[in-house]
């Protein structure tokens, strides 16, 4: 009884958080949140960016929970999965609401430890190997970030965002400070799975259960990587020429090589994992150009990627649950047997490739426009080239999996379980709805996010 109730309680919690993120006014959030009066006082802050992240977190966790109900077998395992999701929620919420660099690190570790367990959840060799790789690289990232925090603490005597930022203003050209910022960024690049720090990502995303892949690609790499990079640069490190150069370089490499990596894959989920690397590149590139428009585009793409990638992982899970395989070369014509999965995957792919009027088109357009207007014409052209590559690998995936001649082996398969279909329809509606309502969202939601950075 309690185990069944846990699912609904968790779902209610996630939906409640999404409701708060959308409907609570900035005044309601206030500048700082103190919990339980004076006895347990946590200084938390929720601004427009945090609200966008809280919405992403709750949305992706809800989808993951729905999928997990069908994807993870055994009541005991499902109960464990729900508990892990709740721990992960506390970690990710902590990351997006804290105003202290050490607290940020602690909550990143909460999320990392939970992700590690979730990746290994299947307990087969592939999952354990992926979890081990992830653990090793995570430890490297942890060491880098922890050392950086120690150096920043030495300089400022505090770990609060505002105090560290004020202290860095006076010691900007100190070698150790530059070193601290450099290694902190490297740690975050590992967490974000950006190239060339991505070795753990394709293994972890493909070896984990579908519900976990949705979680990792949909929100975990964004909270631990993209959001933290954005928050730390805007609140502490500040834009310098070297930071901009590093971000744009890593972003560009990730876009191109992530897309090329995706083109060469046969495994459905592995292809999507490489696609995530490429899309993380877009987010970092948009943010790296340092303008209000670029930052709004980056955060919008972060949200859009969370939606369409969750949907694609969901489609991959639906296909795997019905066919038992992930090798795209052995599939074909599945849209005729699984029409809903086929249609939603087309929508997600087109959104990912930046085809109008779907949501992904607008975020890519904003990023490319921002790059062009900031004078980074070369980077804008690379982003366009990356978008063409994205279209190529998504079309290739569609042709191999959903269209063409139906493989006789799969002549009698049916549409996936109701939970998969429901989640797919919700996500596809978000993709179309956000795309069509873009003019409304631009002034009310997106540009205010860009403005909080004062770019």
């Amino acid at each position: 009884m309690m185990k069944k109730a846990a699912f609904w309680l968790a779902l209610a919690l996630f939906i409640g958080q999404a409701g708060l993120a959308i409907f609570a006014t900035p005044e309601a959030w206030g500048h700082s949140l103190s919990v339980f009066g004076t006895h347990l006082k946590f200084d938390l802050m929720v601004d427009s960016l945090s609200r966008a992240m809280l919405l992403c977190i709750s949305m992706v966790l809800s989808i993951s929970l729905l999928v997990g109900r069908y994807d993870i077998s055994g009541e005991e395992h499902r109960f464990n999965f729900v508990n892990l999701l709740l721990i992960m929620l506390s970690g990710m919420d902590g990351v997006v609401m804290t105003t202290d660099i050490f607290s940020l690190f602690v909550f990143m570790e909460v999320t990392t430890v939970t992700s590690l367990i979730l990746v290994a959840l299947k307990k087969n060799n592939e999952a354990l190997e992926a979890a081990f790789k992830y653990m090793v690289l995570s430890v490297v990232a942890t060491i880098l970030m922890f050392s950086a925090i120690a150096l920043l603490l030495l300089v400022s005597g505090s770990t609060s965002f505002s105090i560290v930022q004020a202290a860095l203003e006076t010691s900007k050209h100190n070698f150790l400070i530059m070193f601290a910022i450099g290694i902190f960024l490297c740690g975050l690049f590992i967490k974000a799975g950006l190239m060339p720090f991505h070795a753990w990502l394709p293994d972890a995303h493909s070896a984990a259960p579908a519900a976990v892949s949705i979680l990792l690609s949909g929100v975990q790499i964004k909270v631990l990587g993209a959001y933290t990079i954005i928050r730390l640069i805007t609140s502490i490190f500040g834009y310098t020429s070297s930071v901009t150069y590093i971000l744009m370089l890593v972003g560009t490499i990730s876009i191109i090589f992530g897309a090329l990596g995706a083109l060469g894959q046969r495994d459905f989920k592995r292809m999507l994992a490489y696609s995530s690397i490429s899309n993380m590149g877009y987010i970092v590139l948009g943010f790296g150009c340092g303008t209000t428009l670029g930052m709004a585009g980056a955060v919008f793409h972060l949200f859009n990627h969370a939606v369409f990638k969750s949907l694609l992982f969901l489609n991959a899970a639906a296909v795997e649950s019905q066919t038992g395989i992930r090798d795209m070369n052995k599939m074909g014509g599945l849209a005729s047997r699984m029409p809903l999965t086929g249609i939603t995957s087309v929508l997600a792919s087109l959104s990912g490739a930046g085809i109008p009027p779907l949501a992904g088109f607008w975020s890519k357009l904003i990023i490319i426009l921002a790059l062009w207007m900031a004078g980074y014409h070369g980077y804008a052209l690379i982003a366009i080239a990356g978008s063409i590559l994205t279209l190529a690998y998504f079309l290739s995936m569609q042709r191999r999996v959903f269209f063409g001649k139906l493989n006789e082996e799969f002549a009698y398969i049916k549409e996936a379980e109701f939970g998969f279909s429901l989640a797919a329809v919700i996500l596809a509606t978000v993709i179309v709805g956000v795309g069509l309502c873009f003019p409304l969202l631009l002034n009310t939601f997106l540009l205010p996010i860009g403005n909080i950075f004062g770019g």
Partner: protein
Amino acid sequence: MAVNTFILITLILAGLWTVMTRSLLRSAIGLALTSAILSILMFRLDSPLAGVFELSVCTGLISVLFISTISLTHPLTHEEILKHMKERLARFKYLPFCVVAAGIAISFIKIKIDWSLPAAAAEKDARLILWNLRQLDLLGQIIILLAGVFGVVILFKEVKKNE
């Protein structure tokens, strides 16, 4: 200074023993020992708060977590341990040369670097820091430990039961 240097060398030796020892259990004990030595160093360098944390969390809780996990795993045979040992040593055979080469290369680079940093702030009252200033971190660390224990139970206990 000499005592601190001696402790630092002991710390490195304990760390090396931890990563090079054949037995997983000894490795976990080595980790606890390394953490304990690090705690002593922290106390001597006027950072009692960091020392207390290192001692309680790393030496105590983490080691207990490691040892309980190891007790749930399947131990290697003597032959397997020897094989792993050989492979591990083979991986590190070029390390001394790399370290020496890197040292020589660094000694040739003559860049003027500003290494100076302000002196560390004086230690405040540990109780004040823990219970008044760092409540959120404490909560986060408790969640990490819970997640760790939960992970051990989920990933290892069932395997043991099946065996």
